[in-house]
């Protein structure tokens, strides 16, 4: 299935885009998605705390992803 991910902060710079599309296997877990993303974009690994929200709620590593899900990647931000 094809999913779309919206990126914020430094993740946007790492993707080179606000949105990316990814072809993944059906019903994979968030933990696997994180691994796939790090494989494709190694710089994400250095962020250490990589938060993923599904349908406007923080997702756990065990949550499953569905094709219709709205997925957001939220990295830590420090400026002030």
């Amino acid at each position, binding site marked *: 299935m094809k999913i779309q991910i919206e990126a914020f902060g430094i993740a946007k*710079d790492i993707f080179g885009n606000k949105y990316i599309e990814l072809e993944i296997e059906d019903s994979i877990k968030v933990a696997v998605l994180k691994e796939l993303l790090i494989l494709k974009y190694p*710089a994400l690994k250095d962020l*250490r*705390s990589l938060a993923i929200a599904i349908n406007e709620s*923080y997702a756990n590593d065990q949550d499953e992803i569905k094709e219709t899900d709205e997925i957001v990647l*939220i990295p830590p*931000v420090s*400026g*002030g």
Partner: protein
Amino acid sequence: MALNKKETERYSRQLLMPNFGMEGQERLKSSSVLVVGAGGLGCPVLEYLVGAGVGLIGIVDGDTVSFNNLHRQLLYSETDQGKLKAKCAARILKEKNSTVKINTYPVFLSTSNAMELASQYDVLVDCTDNFASRYLINDLGVLHDLPVVYGSVHQFEGQVSVFNLKTDQGLSPNYRDLFPVPPAAGTVQDCAEGGVLGVLPGIIGSLQALEVIKIITGLGETLAGQLLLFDALDNKYRKIKFKPSEPPVEINKLIDYEQFCGVSKSTASALEVSPEQARELIEKEEWTLVDIREAAERELSHIGGIHVLQSDVKTFLEQHSRMSNILFYCRSGRRSLALVEEINDSINIEVLSLKGGLLGYIDFWDLDLVKY
């Protein structure tokens, strides 16, 4: 705390609002708020809280006003350059509202002074600009049983939330539930490196002031348990719900936050060279100078060398395995030091970082180049 006639007149536009009234204003008057950081976020937070009539406000900031602060830190004027922000802010805010009591602490919040400072206040506001301070303020709030109003910005985006607030569902989750561990040092740019649109901290700081007022007066619904994301480029707000992590993060005491965030102490590192030594190296053939900053930073000013984005350095090294030794530089020397510390053990050539970065080099050699 009852209001006198003058106060009633001053705050009349607020008093007329439904669900606010005398009671809301009296709550503001009897409350105390500690604002940590009087920069881009701190300026609007302070102005609105002083305007609204919070009884006591503490300002913690050990920094002085710089020329490149003026585009976004609108409390300060050109004549304030070089002066302590906490003192300048207090002076200006007193002129705006003499009835508010203001305590100034022209120091940086640290593990050693934080507990004592926080003990006098009801609400903490995180207007800082680095991860070490953000974890410190979060843990301080948890240990002191105080709500923390968090805000931070990155280029065109901002985040706002309310941590550790007593709600009907118990204490609201905190920063460590959002981001359990800090990113590797040097991976996330701050405003000095990544830049920030002046109006953005104005918006995010105003939202923080709003949350403080809601917490104190009990108006509406706060951002407890929700992370607000704002993107200025498409005017989009997103609210992400979050919960305490399982198992819960244990916070028992304040720790060394600079170490926790991997920030190098200012002690000399064997991987750094001074601007003086750097010039000698650059003149030798076996050394290559590499600038690892972002493209926009390079455009502002540079001291030569080849330009390789930090995110491309590893690929670059793989492709240039026969490269001579490399001297890396960035703006302040922070990112390049983190980089050489990371790669030093895994490559065969010698790598060094320019201590003090571009800024230190410009100062030492008194070059007529832009400092940012």
